């Protein structure tokens, strides 16, 4: 247990935790935004993340095959992000229109089952498309390490953490400073009253799905670049964990989801120091159950009130 006091390992694990936590937070935001407005768990959100990752993969592979990525590495990565965001946002908007909107006033079980159906559908569609094989992200930028004294940090990790923070700040400004953001908050508060105030509720809900999906897509490309291997099942576990993060922070609460994501990432990274690594997944679910029992509204509390 002496290694627990070793600052090198401890710092490394904290940075690992923040990296994966940022990714959880980005996915968790999608859950929390949709839940805040529709009171439904978008079970297919993990698959939207997976499609984003594959979208980025397709573009990067294309660009590295024709040599563009060796001359313009940064531009290629930006292209990958753009393509992923485009694909996932379109997918999110279509899903909302096809699978969730007809069920908006149905009993709460119906949209959840529909979402499970969508999730199974998307997983299998991607499996058929990739023939179930693991895909490997092309190596475009070599992984550099920054050395600060005894500390060595991967550039990828720093960029992921900074990228996540940037996206979250953007989202925060969008929700709290723009007119559309205000409309989103109004719809979350009370859909009918918002529509009486002249807000196009359907448009706002579509925008919510698009934003959530775009964030998940960004997370998908980050995971692809960082872990390099992706497959059609990659959305499942991060999806559940991100949902856990959203609940930890208080579902429906945007800053809560960010905090919950980082918290979960750190808890996992530090947890493996004290318990066997194969139990890593237990930490997330154990924490979830614990938080729900002790503080069912999450760390930051739910913003939305319970619908009677």
């Amino acid at each position, binding site marked *: 247990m002496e290694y627990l006091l070793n600052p090198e390992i401890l710092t490394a694990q904290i940075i690992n935790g923040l990296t994966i936590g940022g990714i959880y937070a980005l996915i968790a935001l999608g859950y929390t935004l949709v*839940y805040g407005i529709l*009171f*439904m*768990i978008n079970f297919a959100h993990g698959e939207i993340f997976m499609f984003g990752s594959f979208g980025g993969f397709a573009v990067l592979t294309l660009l590295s095959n024709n040599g563009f990525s060796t001359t313009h590495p940064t531009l290629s990565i930006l292209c990958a992000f753009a393509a992923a965001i485009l694909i996932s946002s379109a997918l999110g908007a279509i899903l909302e229109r*096809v*699978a969730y909107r*007809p*069920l908006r006033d*149905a*009993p*709460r*079980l*119906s*949209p*959840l*089952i*529909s979402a*499970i*159906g*969508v*999730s*199974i*559908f*998307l*997983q*299998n*569609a991607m499996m*058929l498309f990739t023939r179930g094989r693991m895909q490997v992200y092309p190596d475009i930028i070599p992984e550099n390490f920054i050395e600060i004294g005894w500390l060595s940090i991967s550039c990828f990790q720093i960029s992921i953490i900074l990228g996540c923070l940037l996206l979250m700040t953007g989202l925060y400004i969008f929700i709290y400073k723009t007119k559309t953001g205000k409309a989103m908050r109004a719809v979350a508060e009370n859909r009918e009253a918002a529509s009486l105030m002249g807000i196009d509720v359907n448009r706002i809900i579509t925008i919510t799905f698009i934003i959530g999906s775009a964030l998940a897509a960004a997370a998908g490309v980050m995971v692809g670049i960082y872990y390099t291997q992706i497959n059609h099942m990659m959305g499942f576990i991060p999806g*559940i964990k991100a*949902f*856990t993060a959203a*609940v930890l922070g208080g579902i429906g609460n945007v800053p809560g989801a960010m905090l919950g994501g980082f918290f979960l990432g750190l808890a996992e990274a530090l947890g493996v120091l004290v318990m*066997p690594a*194969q*139990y890593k*997944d*237990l930490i*997330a*679910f*154990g924490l*979830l*159950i614990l938080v*729900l*029992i002790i503080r*069912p509204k999450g760390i930051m509390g739910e913003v939305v009130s*319970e619908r*009677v």
Partner: protein
Amino acid sequence: MIRIEQIFRLTPPKKKILVLFLLVLPFMVGNYWSQILGDIGIYIILGIGLNVVVGFAGLLDLGYVAFFAIGAYGYALLASPQFGIHIPFWLMLPVCIAFGAGFGAFLGTPVLRMRGDYLAIVTLGFGQIMRITLNNLDPLTNGPRGLLRIDPPKIGDWIIDTPIEWYYLIMAGIFFAIFVANRLNDSRIGRAWIAMREDQDTAEIMGINVLKYKLMAFSIGASFAGLGGAIFASRQGSIFPDNFSLMVSINVLCLIIIGGLGSIPGIILGSIILIGLPEALRGVQQYRMLLFGGLLVIMMIFRPTGFIPSARKKIEFKK
């Protein structure tokens, strides 16, 4: 005293034909299809159990597989060479049912205070925890290597091990499960569940102890999974943590919803569609999950009550 002849005379002819058909069915279709009928049968038992939780009481449980695993591992540990304990199958059946019920109560006590969606996710998490634990608890469960050479049921010296013999045993299990579920549904408890499902606050005002009845539904539902698990383990002869993946929970949930929530004929139809059809359509196996996912969405939009809705639901949806 009611005699056998009397029961026979009182049964309507339709039922007589049905029972006769079920009795001769395995001989008509042979070993391969009897095996599949057995698979379908186990899912029917699980479906009936989950229906108590979801259909009767309206609690969404996505971790039902955990109780199935409890039943299966409970039987396998106490009736296999793993620890050299060989308790007979018939004695283990009630024990596994009790394991299921006990675990259901144990998990239910903290989580049933939560709202519906949270319950779904916590049970889902619990199902995952169960599989991870089974995978890693090497000294007890052998981890991914699984438990092997599990005892089959015996009647005297006669060992039940062919698909056709299993068919009859599972059929008996299904009849038992249907009997219990029907009795529960028509009882005071069943009415309390329905009241609670429709409007929790009103039910509470009417003097129903909501928490107690939720716990009861959860625990009784879990006990069916315990029964199914014990049958599954002894029929397979060997079990592995991967037998208890999330897909089992999702399959059981989907079959009761496709068939018709709350209706037992619906569950039977749902099991045949979900478990039997893929066997018949082995040629298009790779597309079957794709179709299945799409079917769930279409079903929810166009026929949310399922193929054979329960009589009560039919009335509710007409309103």
